[in-house]
């Protein structure tokens, strides 16, 4: 019997009935994780011990899960993906991990950080993935925590054929989650169904005294909000992103993705939803990636100032503190991180700030305002997610807008192109997580991709 391919609610029922035990589930999660690590390199750590858990009324009790290695985990190695933190074992857990521990969920492993080529996609080793996405798609456990900064939950979810959900900024505490881009970091979850994503977010959300950006969501009940009632919902898609005529050089893959998307629009209309085509200034859309580059590098270089080896990590060699810091960072940060640090320092430099950083912030504001304008008339904006098309940069980058605005945003699988998963992204206005998840739940119910496990279609 394999359990780890089941949903959280199915597993809870089996646990309550006594047909399986938390230990049996954990043993399977460990076994799967070690195997997935070997095949896809998705883990930093597969844990080897866990406190005994009891099955309680909480639907997450006894359920194994994974967490991206950005989440501080008490007593378990937390590298944040940095060589500089290769020995760091925190003495406290990140806020969301603490909340999950209270429900009785069990940490089975720490997954590789971010979207990275080092992690192989379980559908196609050539395709990109993220540690948590890979582990969930390959059936290590039903869900895994991750951090979405630009679109780093919602895009890998698309590539891996699973659900990736990033709630409204500040709904889930970032306390103890190693910072990337503080104004855009969102704790979120990979799962194989909207319901599981909702359950996990319900458990993690809430005010946290250690994160001032958290807001009171005690009257938000995500799982309970999933009704799938579609009538009267108003959706839109942006013509400049989704119309094939924007891409004269489109390859067959992009054409297929956009065709798949348009099929879904027809399907939604058939189910009683209003789906309109809207137009947004193309100049704004074309600025998205530059704006992201500037702001993300600026905030990253700032957050990385703390990586200096004086308190954490192997102390750098040198005769002075300055030399020690320099050597620690030279060795402890890899090339891509160093590039971010240099770009970030450049755009924040006194004489460059106005031209780069402040302009990027203004641009971010304009784009967010444009999307807020859409939300005045529509419940959500939809788009194809993670087409992987190199010739459709504006489309590929558009999910960054969800991070710019702190909008709730979820990606769900919606078909296949060339045998590989295709996906749909649904983004709504801040604080409307219940509505967005309900829309996703409704769309998910119209199709047959819920709970799918990755199959290697290419070797």
């Amino acid at each position, binding site marked *: 019997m394999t359990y780890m391919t089941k949903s959280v609610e199915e597993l809870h029922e089996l646990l309550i009935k006594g047909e399986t035990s938390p230990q049996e589930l954990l043993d399977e999660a460990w076994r799967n994780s070690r195997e997935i690590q070997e095949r896809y390199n998705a883990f930093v750590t597969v844990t080897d011990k866990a406190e005994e858990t009891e099955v309680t009324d909480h639907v997450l009790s006894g359920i194994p899960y994974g967490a991206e290695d*950005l989440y*501080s985990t008490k007593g378990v190695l*937390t590298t*944040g993906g940095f060589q500089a*933190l290769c020995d*760091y074992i*925190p003495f*406290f857990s*990140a806020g969301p991990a603490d909340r999950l521990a209270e429900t009785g969920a069990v940490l089975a492993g720490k997954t590789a950080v971010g979207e990275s080529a080092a992690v192989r996609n379980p559908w196609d080793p050539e395709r990109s993935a993220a540690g948590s996405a890979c582990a969930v798609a390959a059936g290590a456990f039903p869900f895994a925590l991750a951090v979405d900064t630009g679109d780093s939950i919602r895009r890998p979810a698309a590539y891996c054929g699973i659900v990736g959900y990033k709630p409204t900024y500040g709904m889930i505490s*970032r*306390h*103890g*989650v*190693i*910072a990337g881009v*503080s*104004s855009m970091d969102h704790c979120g979850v990979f799962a194989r169904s909207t319901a599981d994503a909702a359950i996990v977010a319900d458990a993690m959300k809430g005010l946290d*005294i*250690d*994160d*001032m*950006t958290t807001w009171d969501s005690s009257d938000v009940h995500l799982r309970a909000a999933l009704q799938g009632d579609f009538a009267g919902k108003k959706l839109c898609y942006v013509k400049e992103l989704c119309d094939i005529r924007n891409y004269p050089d489109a390859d067959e893959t992009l054409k297929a993705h956009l065709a798949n998307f348009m099929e879904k629009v027809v399907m939604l209309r058939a189910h009683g939803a209003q789906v309109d085509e809207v137009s947004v200034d193309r100049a704004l859309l074309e600025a998205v990636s530059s704006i992201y580059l500037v702001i993300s590098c*600026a*905030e990253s*270089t*700032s957050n990385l*100032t*703390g990586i*200096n080896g*004086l*308190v*954490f990590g192997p102390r750098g060699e040198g005769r002075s*503190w*300055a030399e020690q*810091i320099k050597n620690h960072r030279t060795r402890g940060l890899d090339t891509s991180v160093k590039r971010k640090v240099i770009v970030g*320092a450049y755009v*924040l*430099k*006194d004489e460059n*700030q106005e031209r780069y*950083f402040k302009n990027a912030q203004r641009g971010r504001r304009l784009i967010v305002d444009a999307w807020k304008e859409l939300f005045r008339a529509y419940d959500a904006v939809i788009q194809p997610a993670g087409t992987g098309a190199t010739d459709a940069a504006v489309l590929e980058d558009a999910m960054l807008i969800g991070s710019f605005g702190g909008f709730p945003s979820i990606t769900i699988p919606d078909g296949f192109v060339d045998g590989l998963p295709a996906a749909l992204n649904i983004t709504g206005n801040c604080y409307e997580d219940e509505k967005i998840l309900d829309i996703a739940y409704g769309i998910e119910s119209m199709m047959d991709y819920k709970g799918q496990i990755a199959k290697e279609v290419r070797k």
Partner: protein
Amino acid sequence: MKYKAVIGLEMHCELKSDSKVFSRSRNGYSKLANSNVCPFDLGFPGTMPSLNKKSVREAVMMALVLNCKLPEYMLFDRKHYFYPDLPSGIQLTQNTMPVGVDGAIEIECGGSRKMVYIHDIHLEDDAASMDHFDDTSVIDYNRSAAPLLELVTQPCLYSAEEAVAFLEHMRSAYKYCGTSEADTAKGQIRCDVNVSIMDEDATEFGTRVEIKNVNSFSNVYDAIKYEVKRQSELKAAGRYDEVVQETRRYDDVSGTTQRMRSKEDAVDYRYFPEPNIPRYRLTPEWVESIRREIPRLALERKDMYTGTYGLSEYDAAILVREKEISDYFEKCITLGMDPKEACNWITVNIIAYMNKNELTIDELFLRPEHLYFITDNVKKGTISSKQAKEIFFKVLAEKKEPSAFISKENAQISNEGELGEIIDGILAANPSEVEKYRGGKEKLFEFFVGQVMRQTRGKANPVLTKELLHRKLDQ
């Protein structure tokens, strides 16, 4: 001197609060290194600041004291630099929108008044403290993330005396407002001093030199004196180009300033707004409620003491030196004591007793009510001034109510009828002395006084005794 000195000050003052400005660990001086720390203070990955409302309140209060313009909301900026005292590499400060800008405050210097203009005042967090030894340095993070208020004056001070007068004024303001202990010995006040010189009739400032981390007011004084002299000598010698815009440090052993770094080596702090602290709105209602809590400050009180109460400059200055003493004095007045009398008791007796016993005025058992009770009894004639003083010290030493020392037995006889009867008896018993006195031997008056005192064992009110004796003998 033929040049005019122009001085601007940056004054950092540690604020009083239970927890730190951006973390939950205790804010307080501790001899035990690294005992008041939490993950944020040590820059643990993933930790974020939690803004302390009390620190904001104190910052707003001081901005109001300095008559600054306040922003609509509190905004913090990250300031970046690498140094072992800053584990996260980020200091949180207010670069774009300080809690107060464009202020002005009147101070007293050398007997005259002067306006000092404030560029801004901003709330930030402190760094760890370090001790350096021959081959090693140690870091104490107790101070890390502690609240620090930095005020920056305009270049509007023209002598070391004015600079120190301003610092003294502000130290007093901090203490009066209860926002800081403002103790230089504990490193709670640290100053940076900007000094330049210019020709008396010049309109443009000279080259500015910054002297960093001057930690006592006397060092501020000496550093300015030295720096003005150094710059003036170079200018007089035609070598003013050797005065360059740079940062220097003051060495109190040699009494000189030395170059730390030049302008070219200045650090680019790469400021930008801290995303982890949402904008914190300062509502007009809250600001007003803080304004109402600002006590009257020393200079205002001193003006009242010399003006309304007619006290001397000297006495008034002693009374306002500490808010607690001034409050004590004012309480005495409210109870009905004569200001000069209250002033005398406090400046002569109370302060001497405090100093001798190393007590603060609030630690004394003797409250203003007690002092009023004692002096009121002197006024009523129940006790003599001499007795009052004895009772004053007994109350302090034995920690008992003054009424405990005024009993029937030691109470002064001030009743005219009672004393009259005693005197009548004495006069009747000494007819020949009465005869001689009335015959012109006036020296005998003291004999009668002595008889009254002997019979009453010293309790007769001396003034009344003399009055009655005169009345009865001279009729």
